[in-house]
């Protein structure tokens, strides 16, 4: 889609559907000529068999949409992106929740209340200080991964 710039006036729907139609046509042409059509594209950390783009002499792949009659290509792409991002978010959220939920359980051990590091009690250090860098680290990791997921998706669509 290098020639058609995606502007704010373009219906995003049509953009994707158009790309899908073009690629599907190309693929059929190649198939007829005996070229291999299956390929994998990395979207985030998962590999997907997806529709890649058009007019270049790239290998064009069979899409999931061709396997399911009813679903249009664009919708599938979006679902994949959403799913990848959701799994990323859930994973990091689960990590955070486990850490946060684990701290009160840790506190149930009476001996923990007396451990002193640098003159300060452990519970205070943990809850008053150490959690914050942990949050920032999780956030930073998320930002990097989410941006990368989006990058991959955009590359695939625009390309």
């Amino acid at each position: 889609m290098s020639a058609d710039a995606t502007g704010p006036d373009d219906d995003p729907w049509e953009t994707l559907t158009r790309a899908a139609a073009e690629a599907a046509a190309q693929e059929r042409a190649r198939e007829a000529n005996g070229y291999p059509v299956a390929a994998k594209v990395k979207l985030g950390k998962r590999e997907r068999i997806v529709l890649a783009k058009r007019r270049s002499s790239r290998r064009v792949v069979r899409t999931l949409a061709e396997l399911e009659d009813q679903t249009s290509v664009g919708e599938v792409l979006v679902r994949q992106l959403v799913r990848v991002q959701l799994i990323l978010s859930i994973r990091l959220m689960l990590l955070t929740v486990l850490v946060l939920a684990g701290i009160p359980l840790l506190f149930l051990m009476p001996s923990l209340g007396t451990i002193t590091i640098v003159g300060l009690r452990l519970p205070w250090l943990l809850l008053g200080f150490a959690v914050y860098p942990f949050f920032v680290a999780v956030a930073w990791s998320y930002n990097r991964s989410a941006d990368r997921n989006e990058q991959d998706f955009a590359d695939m669509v625009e390309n």
Partner: protein
Amino acid sequence: MFYVTIGAMVVIAAATMLTGLYGTKVRSTSDFLVASRTLGSRWNAAAISGEYLSAASFLGIAGLVLKGGVDALWYPVGFTAGYLALLLFVAAPLRRSGAYTLPDFAEARLGSVGLRRVCTIFVIVIGWLYLVPQMQGAGLTLHAVTGQPTWVGAAVVMVIVTLNIYTGWMRSITIVQAFQYWIKLTALAIPVFVLLIHNAGERPGLRDSLGTPATPYFSHVADITLDHDVVLEVAQPVVVQAVGNEDGRVANGTVYWAPGEHRVAKNTRLHFDAGSRAPVIRGAVLDNDKWLRPLGAGGHPLLATYSLIVALLLGTMGLPHVLGRYYTDPDGRAARRTTLLVLSLLGVFYLFPMVSGWLARLYVPELLVNGNTDAALLLLPRAALGGWPGLLLGGLIAAGAFAAFVSAATGLVVSIAGVLSSDVLPGRLRDFRAATAAAWTVPLAFVLAVSSLDLAQGVGLAFAVAASSFCPLLVLGIWWRGLTDVGAAAGILAGGGLAFAAVLPAAAGVLPPGWQTLLAQPAVFTVPLAFLTMVVVSHHTSDRIPVDVSRILLRLHAPDRLGLSEDRDLGQLAPRAGIVALPRMRGGRHRR
């Protein structure tokens, strides 16, 4: 201290106004917005933090730490973790939706005006719940500085905020709010550093007393007049001079208190000699050793802790004044960057209330007697340092506290008035100014009638309702195709309604202690209920799924550089910007 405080407040106000004037060299709304957008994530993050740090963060945490020790630290941790949850699930997609308020988002996502109305109601309710502690905090601050009764401070904040909004003096634009963050941080950091240095020079006995299985003791003479009835717990026998009514008897002179509970009536004056042990109010942690350890006081400590964590973690994203601040980020990716910085700024800030609470346990144990632990930070400098340094620093803190109340209250009132004037009030009252006035009535009435909760706990109530209503809406709306308007409304009403019904009696303080813990933090029950309701009802009404849901989700999740995200009509952003002449905010804009 009065004059110092007033002086500091005037300086802060003047500096804020000047910053506002400097930052607003532009005339039109869109110029203004563009200018704000070029500021970048660091400014936006400081602005978000500046507005977010309210009474609870500034004063409330220190007071709770004084009372409850380590367990109180779950509040700042929760406040911060809430932004992490927001980042993971909501920040970028919400920015891309172009929604400026939560009712906006609901309507854009699900296309229902009825749902929009439900959301509006909850925005107002949550806003009010959050506003009440701000006014109480202001009342407390003014009382500590001038001795005026609480309602005076509350009324003063109301007047200042209303004037702000009407005249647009201190615009809540990004630069101004960013400045607010640094003011608050400074107002807190300087006194705390000074006090720490002072404390380091103290005789060791005082500091070590925190680890001993004994109650805190008065390092200096303490005269306390009680402004409400209290039940005190005494661990070690103490001799006190009492004038008034204690344990049902009229007292006038020396009284000997054996270990156990003692009831003291309002208006009684108590005098403790230096070195005598301090009794503590029921509900606070009694001996210093237990105070230093976690899971100290209260029934069901584990359940209460978890419920609080759930409320704070999931409630931030549902607060009315949080969302609009993201609009000054140019796109979804910038929204993520900004949120990351917010986490850092909050983390830095929250170190100080913790240290203050620890210092307060040493220097102002009398607050454990009269129960006004929220005043800990205000009274700490005078108690620890005395003389003019104490006055100076105390004034600085009071001014910072007032800045906190005014900025948080401004953000809240603007949010509430915004939805009131656009969605609720018909006819002539579609006027932002009238809505502003209307926004105050209920909270003020509440403050005047009731004033029993700690500031941080009061704020926690708002979080609980937000977590039970808007969190499921946002999370399911952004990530799940299957949400319907009926499902969303059902979930909000069930979860949010139940949460509100639970917290209201808790806020009024009319419950016996056992129930208080459970009902004041209902989140661990109401949040799952809300999610479940939304999912189940949506399944049953799946014919109402919006036809263009795929397109909407695409808009929310697609990378910014594809240019698919939405920008709202800029003219309607005026009230948030603090500019007063506004066009009417209409519903039904997003569906084309």
